Structure formats: C-alpha cells, structure tokens
C-alpha cells in the first residue's frame, strides 16, 4: 500500500500539472509545472520526502530507461537524420565546449566581484 500511495501522490501531481497547463494563458510544459508543484509542496512542508522517497528513487534512478521508446521512434526519421548527422555532431561538440567555458567564466567573475565587495 505504501508504494501505491506514493504512486498516487506523484501521478496526482502530474495530473494537476496538466490541469494548470490547460488553465494558463501561455503554453508551459505540464511536466515542468508538475516539478515546480512538487518542489513547492516539499518547501512548504505539505509533503515530506518520506511520502514519496521510494517512488521518486525508482523514477530518478531508472530515468534513462524511460527514454528508450522515445529514442527508438527515431526509426521514423532516419532520412531526416541521415542528411544532417555530421552537422549535428559538430554542434554537439562545439556547444558543449562553449557552454562549459561560459558557465565556468561567469561563475569565476561573480565570485571575484563578491570577494572584492566583501574585502572593501
């Protein structure tokens, strides 16, 4: 029953995410609304980690598996992919490099400014 209850809580949050998505005037992904909703519930103590621990461990630790069917559906787009595989690979390498560099540098700059303010 414990697991069923946890499944119930998380599925309910996902459904509420859909309800809120339908009510919003702009489009915002329902699963992200669910995530924010769960975070707010934890933050304000409406839910305790113990209420969802096992189910959330199960979902988080098996995350990669749940994407198998989504990945397999690439079978329907092989032609589209064939023509642009090389550029996609180049973009993946270059953007990973750029993202790392910009994140690291912006943090370094922020820390330096914070230390300077603290020092003066």
């Amino acid at each position, binding site marked *: 029953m414990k697991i069923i209850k946890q499944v119930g809580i*998380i*599925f309910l949050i*996902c459904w509420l995410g859909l309800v809120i998505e339908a009510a919003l005037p*702009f*489009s915002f*992904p*329902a*699963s*992200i609304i669910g*995530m*924010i*909703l*769960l*975070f707010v519930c*934890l*933050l304000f103590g409406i839910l305790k*980690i113990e209420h969802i621990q096992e189910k*959330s461990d199960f*979902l*988080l630790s*098996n*995350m*990669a*598996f*749940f*994407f*198998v*069917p*989504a*990945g*397999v*559906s*690439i*079978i*329907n*787009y092989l032609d*589209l*992919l064939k023509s642009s595989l090389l*550029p*996609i690979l*180049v*973009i*993946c*390498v*270059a*953007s*990973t*490099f*750029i*993202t*790392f*560099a*910009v*994140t*690291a*540098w*912006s*943090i370094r700059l*922020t*820390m330096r400014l914070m230390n300077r303010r603290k020092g003066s």
Partner: protein
Amino acid sequence: MKEIFSSPFFGISLSILAFWAGEKLQKKTKLTACSPLLVAIVLIIGVLLLFDIPYEAYNEGGQIINMFLAPATACLAVSIYTRIKLLKKHWLPILVGCTCGSLASMGSIYLMCTLFHLDEKITLSLLSKSVTTPIAVSITERFSGVVPVTVVAVLITGTLGSILAPFFVRLFRVKDPLEAGLAIGACSHAVGTSKALEIGETEGAMSGLAIGICGIITVIFSLFI
C-alpha cells in the same frame, strides 16, 4: 502473426531486455560512450528492422513506458530539494552561472544551425539539448520539433561532456569545486553529473543542482522564442 507483436508485453519486454543488455555491455567495456540507453535504442531498431516488425506494434508497449516520463520529470524536484542548503548558500553564483550557461548553449546552437542551414525542425529540436532529457523533450514538444532527435542529441551531448569534463577542468584551469560542478552540469546534465561525482562530492552536488536550475532557466528562455 502481427497480433503477437502488437501486444504491449512485447514492446515492454524488448525494451527491458535491450536496456539490460546495454547495462551489461557498459559494465564489461567500462566505456562511457556505451550508454545503456544508446545500446538499447540501437538494439531495438535492429530487431524491428531485422524481423520487419512495424514501429507501431513496438510502440503499443512503448507508450506505456512513455507514461513514466512526466512523473520522472516531476521527481527532479526531489533532487533539487535535497540540495536546498547548498542552493541557499551559493544562490548568486549558481543563478548567474546557470543563466549564462543556458544562454550560451541555446545561442551557440542557434548560430551553428543557421550556419549549417539545418532544417528548421531539426534546429528547434536541438535548441534544448544541453539540459536533462525530460525537460529538453518538453521544450521540443512545445516547439513541435522532432522529439527523438532531441533524445539522441541530449544523449550525445551528455556522453561527450562526461568524457571531456576532466579535460575541460584542466584546460580552463578550474580550481573551485563549485565552478567545476556547475559547469559540468550545465553542459552535460545527468551523464556529466555521474562523472562530476567521481571527481568530488561538492562537484557532484553542484552538477546535480545545475541540471534542475539550467533546465528551468532554459524552459523560461524558450517561452520567448
């Protein structure tokens, strides 16, 4: 004959079997590039093509597995919540770093896609590829892009980031574990985080935080595209 394959049991068992084989293979080869997800996708596509099984039949089971994606995404909240002390203590560098990183990621992808004259559908499917798969997929769905392209691009990016992370840390002379962790998480989400955990505990925790924060920031930016 067709009915046998269109039972959801077929798609689910095939997926679990293929993923399990992928995990075995990774344990044996110890290669980051040999991710169970990638191996499973290749194996299943191979089986479907070899035995001429229609994708729709496999997807009867696939849909049921897909149903777990939204709950799994919601649970990312748990992984942010468990690190809330760290987040409160370093909120400014975390926020600045993740915002700049997400902007740099989306900006550089857009520029390069335009440069390579990629199909608009592919461009829209790549924009979110530096964040964790569930969030990236939600963004692509909003853009009506091609979800499987996003799944594969996110996987390639994560794997690359995880392999290159130690090299990047040396190249950019990163000494602060906070900086290293956030940068790894920002460019290569969950796959990178497992590498960051190997480098150090603070690096791992920061990288884990960057997954959620960069994800939310990227969703917000995508609202304006």
